[in-house]
């Protein structure tokens, strides 16, 4: 994995600090061309991996990449699925069965489709695979060496202790997509223990790592212990604690953990991207 991974929150009005900032971003990135422009600027600084949710608008970005293979042929995308708010809002409105009906491709209530059979037999792993395929369809023909499940789903499965689902996801991603499975979580220590318990060793885990202990559930100390002692491949996110930390002190903190392989961050201006990338490359020891 590259040391520097570019994220997509800024494109989709995700700000963990301010609804106002979210709206500004929604306005600025209304057109796909605005997203592509910032991605290109990130590439100009030498960034070669983009981690993004399976948001509807990413499909258009993927089209653009497929249409320009000369430019993006070696570029990597790390998809994170699903785009959780799509499902969360649908569940509020349609209920769980209604949501499955809406998003599993084909007619879920027809026994003649794969989805119908999976639904009828309550083949949960089969349903999971169908949903994974539906989410990943937009990336066909694009390099996706690591494929993530997004934190709301990971942490829900973790809390429900349905660890076998991780195992099934893990083997499906390896087998069908020839990719490495990854996990985003807000509960790093508990997740690593759970994955190890079903035989998933040395997993790629993306979680909050910051000096403030923000969104590091269970506390900073246990995270630091896991980052120092346990066997896994960490990607640090929310390293600026949603903007509460200055970039230099934030990334200096990460430098204390040589195990950290990559840092995920998002930014909207070329200067900001360049500055953060330089800090990561200077201060992170790994590689």
């Amino acid at each position, binding site marked *: 994995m590259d040391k520097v991974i570019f994220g997509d929150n800024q494109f989709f009005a995700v700000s963990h600090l301010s609804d106002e900032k979210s709206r500004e971003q929604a306005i600025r990135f209304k057109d796909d061309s605005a997203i592509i422009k910032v991605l290109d600027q990130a590439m100009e600084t030498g960034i070669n991996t983009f981690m993004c949710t399976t948001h509807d608008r990413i499909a258009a970005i993927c089209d653009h990449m497929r249409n320009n293979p000369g430019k993006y042929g070696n570029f990597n995308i790390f998809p994170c699925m699903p785009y959780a708010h799509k499902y969360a809002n649908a569940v509020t*409105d*349609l*209920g*769980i*069965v209604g949501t499955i009906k809406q998003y599993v491709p084909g007619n879920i209530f027809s026994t003649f489709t794969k989805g119908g059979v999976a639904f009828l037999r309550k083949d949960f792993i089969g349903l999971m695979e169908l949903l994974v395929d539906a989410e990943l369809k937009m990336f066909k023909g694009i390099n996706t060496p690591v494929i993530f499940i997004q934190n709301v789903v990971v*942490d*829900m499965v973790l809390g429900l*202790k349905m*660890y076998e689902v991780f195992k099934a996801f893990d083997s499906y991603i390896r087998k069908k997509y020839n990719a490495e499975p990854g996990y985003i979580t807000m509960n790093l220590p508990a997740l690593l223990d759970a994955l190890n318990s079903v035989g998933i060793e040395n997993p790629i885990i993306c979680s909050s790592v910051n000096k403030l202990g923000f969104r590091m559930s269970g506390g900073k100390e246990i995270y630091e212990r896991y980052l120092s002692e346990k066997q896994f491949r960490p990607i640090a996110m929310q390293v600026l604690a949603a903007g509460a930390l200055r970039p230099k002190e934030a990334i200096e903190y990460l430098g204390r953990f040589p195990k950290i392989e990559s840092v995920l961050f998002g930014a909207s201006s070329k200067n900001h991207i360049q500055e953060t990338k330089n800090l990561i490359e200077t201060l992170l020891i790994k590689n």
Partner: protein
Amino acid sequence: MKLRGGIIGLGKMGLSHAAIVGPHPDAELVAVCDTSSLILDAFKKFTSVNVHTDYIRMIDNEKLDFVIVATPTRFHYPIVKYALEKGIHTFCEKPFSLRTNEGEELVSLADKKWLVNQVGYHNHFIGTFIELKRLLKANILGELVHFTGEAYGPVVTKEKGGTWRSDPEEGGGCLFDYASHVINLIQEIAGRPVNAKGTLRKMIYSKNVEDAVYSMLTLESGLTGVLSVNWSDETYRKMSTSLTLIGKKGKIICDATEIKIYLKEANPKEKLGKGWTIKYITEFAIPVDFYLRGEEYSAQIDNFIGCIIKKKQSEINSFAQALSTDRIIDLIIADSKN
């Protein structure tokens, strides 16, 4: 010994509660109850939790210390009543009850039996709203002159038939689902509304329930303000709830991520300068051991379980407080029919 917990109703909130109770250090998720065989089969297949389709059987057989009731609102009354009668501490999703006489009965039953009772108005466990309440108590805005309580989000954004949420008899609609949060926040932070005027309940995409509610509220203190809630606003990525308070000495705008304070003069005691001060949730978030969708969801369960262990009533989100919110919803409905 861990407390034995059960969950009744496995929709979005029920599953979320199950995922939070499961890893809780002081509790064990013993049983769940739902009518959907799809969901129950998933629990059967992947977990060791006992599954039930009948809450009475679950309560009678599982020796529970507490239950979390997350069914559609119209089932709250019979289920909560049965749990309380059996001496089980009860957490109920919001809104609390559809009929205030039923709500009153549950409040007095819980009191009589000395059972911990709490309702899922989770905004009170968001650090920024806690800070807002503290600052108002410290009177940093001076005499209050106006408030605005708002919530917007993208739940119903096109026309279609629906689930219980589109049935007014079952507690569907934006007033019960979205606005109840805002009304409860106003009630606990600014004061209890006692009158509603000029209420508009607008159907936008739904056929039987309102998708937006606007109302002018008067509080016990005489303070007046505006309620403005719309769940058909897709310019929001997810539900966004905010309170604005205006006083003679300044103004505060507060939501789940930030608190923006404007003061006409500096307040040295609070270390707040003249003009704007912006503070973020990073400073106020309640630390939790397990995180799912927001600290507040875990923090409210920590509070409930903590109260059971300490054998004390919850001071936050008691049945009585939630009943008060139900009464205000009644006022708003009555006014909308005028």
